[in-house]
């Protein structure tokens, strides 16, 4: 089991944002996390990746307890994520963004950077090549030298995904990868996700577009008010009365 949450909880003052949540994400699957606004989905992501500490329970990755570790350590173990409000290094070019993300795989030491050795240059060259190859697969190669802050929304989303992949993560966590995309772009993203699964990666995603979620996910977990109310295949979830109730009670599902 790559990722396992055991009775995870988080309180903010008097508010129980996530309560006693247990779930597992199977390897090489696409796992969706859905729920109405304020259900605690982003909080779950923040708890998994160590951005905020949990107040109860524990998170395990490949059998190792990761709750309590700092985000960078968790990333080093193979979990990388995107943020809902797409965040990039806005002053950097597309390629530089990817190079920062790839630093785990190929970061040279301070000493060799200073000495400017041939080995250092060789590694730099290889890192660039790998970065460009990655951009190629996401149709961003042509934009490699564009400053990230100036990219259109769609390319920013793609770049955020490229950066997550560049870390070499085995589990990628995506917070609303389809938000704001046109139908054609959503389809492209879907096929990218499927390709990642084929390559053996595990994907955990939060998404509001129900059609996309149901189309791409192997398993779906439904949260409401910080509680897990259902889990199963897309087909099972769509038929689950509790889920329908939760969504209808709050707002129209999907967008």
């Amino acid at each position, binding site marked *: 089991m790559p990722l396992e949450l055991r009775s995870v909880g988080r309180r903010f003052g008097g508010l129980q944002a996530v309560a006693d949540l247990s779930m597992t994400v199977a390897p090489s699957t696409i796992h969706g996390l859905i729920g109405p606004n304020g259900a605690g989905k982003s909080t779950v992501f923040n708890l998994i*990746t160590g*951005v905020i500490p949990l107040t109860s329970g524990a998170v395990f990755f490949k059998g190792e307890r990761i709750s309590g570790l*700092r*985000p*960078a350590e968790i*990333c*080093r173990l193979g979990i*990388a*994520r995107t*943020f809902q409000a797409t*965040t*990039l*290094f*806005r*002053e*950097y*070019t597309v390629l*530089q963004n990817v*190079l*920062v*993300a790839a*630093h*785990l795989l*190929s*970061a*040279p030491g*301070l000493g060799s*950077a*200073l000495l*400017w050795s041939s080995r250092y240059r060789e590694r*730099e060259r290889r*890192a660039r090549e790998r970065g460009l190859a990655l951009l190629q697969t996401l149709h961003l190669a042509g934009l490699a030298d564009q400053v990230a802050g100036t990219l259109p929304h769609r390319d920013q989303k793609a770049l955020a995904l490229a*950066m*997550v992949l560049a*870390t070499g993560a085995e589990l990628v966590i995506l917070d609303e990868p389809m938000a704001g995309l046109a139908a054609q772009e959503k389809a492209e993203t879907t096929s990218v996700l499927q390709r990642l699964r084929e390559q053996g990666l595990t994907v955990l995603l939060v998404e509001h577009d129900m059609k996309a979620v149901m189309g791409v996910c192997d398993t779906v977990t439904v949260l409401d008010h910080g509680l897990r109310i259902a889990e199963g295949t897309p087909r099972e979830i769509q038929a689950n009365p509790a889920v329908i109730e939760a969504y209808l009670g709050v707002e129209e599902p999907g967008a």
Partner: protein
Amino acid sequence: MEPSRGLSAPPGRALGAPIAGLALLAAGVVALPQLTRDSYYLDVATTILMNLALTMSLRLQVSTGQLNMAHISFMGIGAYASALLVTRVGISFWAALPIAAVVAALLAFPIGGLALRVTGPYYFLITFAFSEVVRLFFNNFFVDLFGGPSGLVGIPKPSALPWFGRALTFTTKLELYTLMAALLLVTAAVLVRLEHSRFGLVASAIRQGDLLAETLGVNVFRYKLTAYVVGSLVAGVAGAFFAHSHQVLHSSDFGLEPMVLLVVFTVIGGTGSVWGPVAGTVLMTIAGELLRELHHYESLVFGVVLILTMLWAPDGLVALPGKLARRRRVGVSLAP
């Protein structure tokens, strides 16, 4: 404290620009004594070079998103360490210089390690608190050793070095200028190299988004601490030079006022590029010396200059040519 969004020359890229910049800096440094041997010019130039070492290393820290108000304290630590090593222990300046720098760097580990646990305005203020503790320490404790409020006097100039059977002395303004020039060029080469390496790439990424960097696996704390320690090492070198070129030390040399000037130089020049502090330090020091003629009005006019420059060039002086050029380009593109 969040540094302003600089228009950074993208680091980690084309080597041409940094090498050209370093060559230009070196050419200027070598050319100056050919043009003038006036002691006052050389003295001001030496001060500029020393301040360059301080502002360029401060910029390294700013590039990771931290404005370290205790930077000057590590210059002080280097200065007092070197002065005492030479006058009390009796070792030569040339041995004391690296030891002083290492002492500054070693002390940077605990101080930086503690300060970097807080962020934003709290970091700014905690480093200010640290700098005041260090200054008050030099002023009030171990007075027999540090000279206390009377200052430490009688520090010898750097001793002569044997050089192919001759002795290289470091007593005249020109010789001291040459020494500081050599120290600065090495420092600048290291800092520019760092800036354009992957280290610089990741460091500046932290300023643009430290949470994003952290979740991408960047050990943000370690990068910040590395910048802190490397910066302090450079400050220690500058301090050792200061001690032996000025020959007197006083705790107020390492207080809030000179620290604030370093920040002024760095930010006015622009924190987005490694060359920002160079532009800021050179231009603002010259401006300051020109304003001396104004006597009572000096600080008044200097204040006005600061306000206007910052409003007119919010990204610093180095970003200005690019900004003007872009404005021109826009003008061109609007034409049919």
